[in-house]
């Protein structure tokens, strides 16, 4: 068993957690501001595609990341316009994002590259090894397996927590999610706060998609996010809309994914599909059992309108 639980396994767990963590942060910001966002999956696909397309066209993977930010802004602004400005049904708006995100990206692949399904390789973001970290006792060997990009993603967790829980902007955002009317009476521009939060969630989700397409891999494949946007939502709900716990749940999902991958190497008797369903099964079981009554921000899902 000791060669099953190796450093490599945990490192792969962290790698697999990053593309869940980023959309989770986006979803959390969005919902704490009072807007339901089940469109993370579509936003991720957009980001994954945008990153590959920009990297392909410019030949520069960093511009590819910028492209992902662009598609994230676009999908975020579209959802924010539908659900915050026009006060449409938030679930329907986000569902539309998912459908369009999946459909449009799949349709654009043959148009740009002339082949169906998977794009050819594009320049991928280099993942430089971190100098010196190998010497740190205990966690050193694990950290040595990570790249600077991973660390940036983990730092974002801390940053989101800080802003949300410790700063004035965070207090405003949470106020909008708890009671839009109270926030309005306190002079907070609810529409603006929510618009920004939704847009930001688009960017974070898109970066999660880009991580899959041009950091882990170097290509885009239709539906390559494989439900990670929904896993991110599940992690947020498990974590009861709190950054720390939701982050831990993401790590748990990453570990489940890593175990499934590794078990594939170790055993040949278990059906692979079942193994890869592991995180989703975990999510379902947890949602149905010990999470219990998970109540989000009090005003989530309710469009805000002034008289």
């Amino acid at each position, binding site marked *: 068993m000791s060669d099953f639980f190796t450093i490599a396994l945990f490192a792969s767990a962290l790698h697999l957690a990053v593309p869940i963590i980023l959309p989770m942060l986006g979803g959390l910001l969005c919902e704490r501001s009072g807007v339901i966002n089940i469109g993370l999956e579509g936003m991720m696909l957009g980001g994954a595609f945008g990153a590959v397309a920009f990297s392909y066209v410019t030949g520069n993977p960093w511009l590819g990341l910028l492209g992902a930010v662009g598609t994230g802004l676009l999908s975020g602004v579209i959802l924010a316009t539908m659900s915050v400005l026009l006060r449409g049904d938030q679930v329907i708006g986000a569902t539309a994002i998912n459908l369009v995100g999946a459909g449009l990206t799949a349709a654009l692949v043959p148009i740009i590259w002339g082949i169906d399904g998977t794009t050819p390789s594009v320049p991928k973001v280099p993942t430089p090894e971190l100098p010196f970290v190998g010497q740190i006792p205990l966690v050193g060997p694990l950290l040595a397996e990570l790249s600077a990009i991973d660390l940036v993603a983990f730092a974002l967790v801390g940053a989101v927590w*800080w*802003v949300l829980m*410790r*700063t*004035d*902007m965070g*207090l*405003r955002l*949470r*106020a909008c999610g*708890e*009671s839009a*009317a*109270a*926030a*309005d*009476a*306190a*002079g*907070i*521009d609810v529409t603006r706060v929510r618009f920004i939060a939704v847009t930001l969630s688009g960017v974070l989700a898109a970066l999660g998609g880009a991580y899959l397409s041009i950091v882990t891999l170097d290509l885009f494949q239709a539906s390559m996010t494989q439900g990670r946007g929904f896993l991110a939502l599940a992690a947020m709900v498990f974590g009861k809309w709190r950054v720390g716990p939701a982050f831990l749940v993401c790590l748990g999902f990453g570990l489940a994914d890593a175990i499934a991958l590794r078990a594939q190497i170790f055993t040949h008797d278990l059906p692979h599909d079942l193994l890869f369903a592991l995180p989703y099964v975990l999510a379902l079981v947890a949602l149905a059992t010990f999470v219990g009554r998970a109540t989000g*921000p*009090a005003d989530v899902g*309710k469009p805000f309108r*002034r*008289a």
Partner: protein
Amino acid sequence: MSGAPENQIPAIHLAGIDKRFGAVHANRAIDLRVAPGSIHGLLGENGAGKSTLMKILFGMIHADAGTVEIDGAPVSFRSSAEALAAGIGMVQQHFSLIGAFSVVENLIMGRAQGSALSRLTRKLDLPAAAARAAELSERFGFGIDPWAKVSTLSVGARQKVEILKALWGGARTLVLDEPTAALSPPEADELYAVLEKLRAEGRTIVLISHKMPEVMRLCDRVTVLRDGAVVGNAEISARDTTDPKVRAELEARMVDMMIGRESPALPDRAPQEGPLILDVRGLSDGHRLGPLDLQLHGGEIVAVVGVEGNGQSELVDLLMGLSKPTDGLIAIDNRNVTDWSTQKRLAAGIAHISEDRHASGVANDMSLADNASIGYLDGEPFSPGPWYLAWRDRVRFTEVLIERHKVRTPSALLPMSSLSGGNQQKLVVGRELARSPRLMVAAQPTRGLDIGSASAVHHALLGLRERGAAVLLLSLDLAEVFALADRLVVLRKGQIAGAMTAAEFDIDQIGRWMSGAQDTTPDTTPATAPRKQEVA
């Protein structure tokens, strides 16, 4: 203090304010001048347009026409943030605090200054804000813990937090929309002292109220609205508030301006003998209530009085099946209903006017028709079968309620949130009265109602009594209790501290029971004559 406001620059000057909500003309060319350093009363029936006018001043609603001047300078607030920055604070009619936040978070939210970057990165200094909150709370004798989570506070404490919030930015002008509607008389007295202190400091206050004694005590001048228009102003000088005759005349004049008629006197009531309807024995929630015994007979109104938080809400929750007792029995018409669901109890003939209509009485985003028929959906008249709601009948029923209780609205299909506060209350009360209950549990039934509407509800409750129903009345308003109840019990620390019949009503004794002070004259003197009180 009441000097002619024309000679000085008004602290607030609204001119020609006009506002329509669809078919409703909420404000019609309203002019209002408020003298600096005065308390200005804003009176009028439910739906007269008071809250709308003040929300326009506060930048929360945009007027269709009209101008606003503060201290002589024209302003045009696009949001409450701008009004706050201009030194105006407002306490909304409905609580606008966030229950999940601490007091101090509620106070500082939206208030931080500085660049966007610093507000995004710099840590909020909560301890400093808490120290300031404690100091402010100390100054007005509020005794509020700045770190307490708002959802754990009593209604009275929340009202104080609202006032702290309005004063937080150093507001020179304060708008208070029915600040005492949910307060007990001693709490209201504390608030009056605070308002007088604020006036003495030179601040300007606009007070919206339906309570005439409060208006007479505090206001220097009043403006009365009806149907969205100003119908008159009145000065209240110190002489008026002390001379009972002048005072009564002035009050009558203001009431006349408000509702254009006198509210009909309550009918005389003969004592009635009815069967036992509600029988509560040894009831306890294991925490805040009980053990408690209480019997109600048909044709009887029994009031439960006491300082808020002494078990009243727990009693109501247990009676309605909203929580489970740890001990004791509840019987209705000799049937043990202790383990019954709320639904089954409603079907057995209990009706319930809930204390806080926003927490449990209405769904704000649903239509009036939906709200009016909630709780009726499991049987006649609106669900002839299990798969089918008689939509048309529900709308018609709602229209009957609207008509009967003079709810001001153009349509039964509008959302509940479009009604003024008092009109929401009228619809809830109407819905519960329409059940023709055997037992009516009425908690603060006239909260936020204007004088005419409150009187109509009093008549309706007496009508239930006349028809042999039992009414359990929970009220903070002793005048209301004296006017309606056949009997009262005083609840203190979850137990009955004392009881008296209508003939024995004695406000001093009730006060002693409420506060737990020792009874100084035990049974040696006959009960003092009841004080006659007018119902507000």
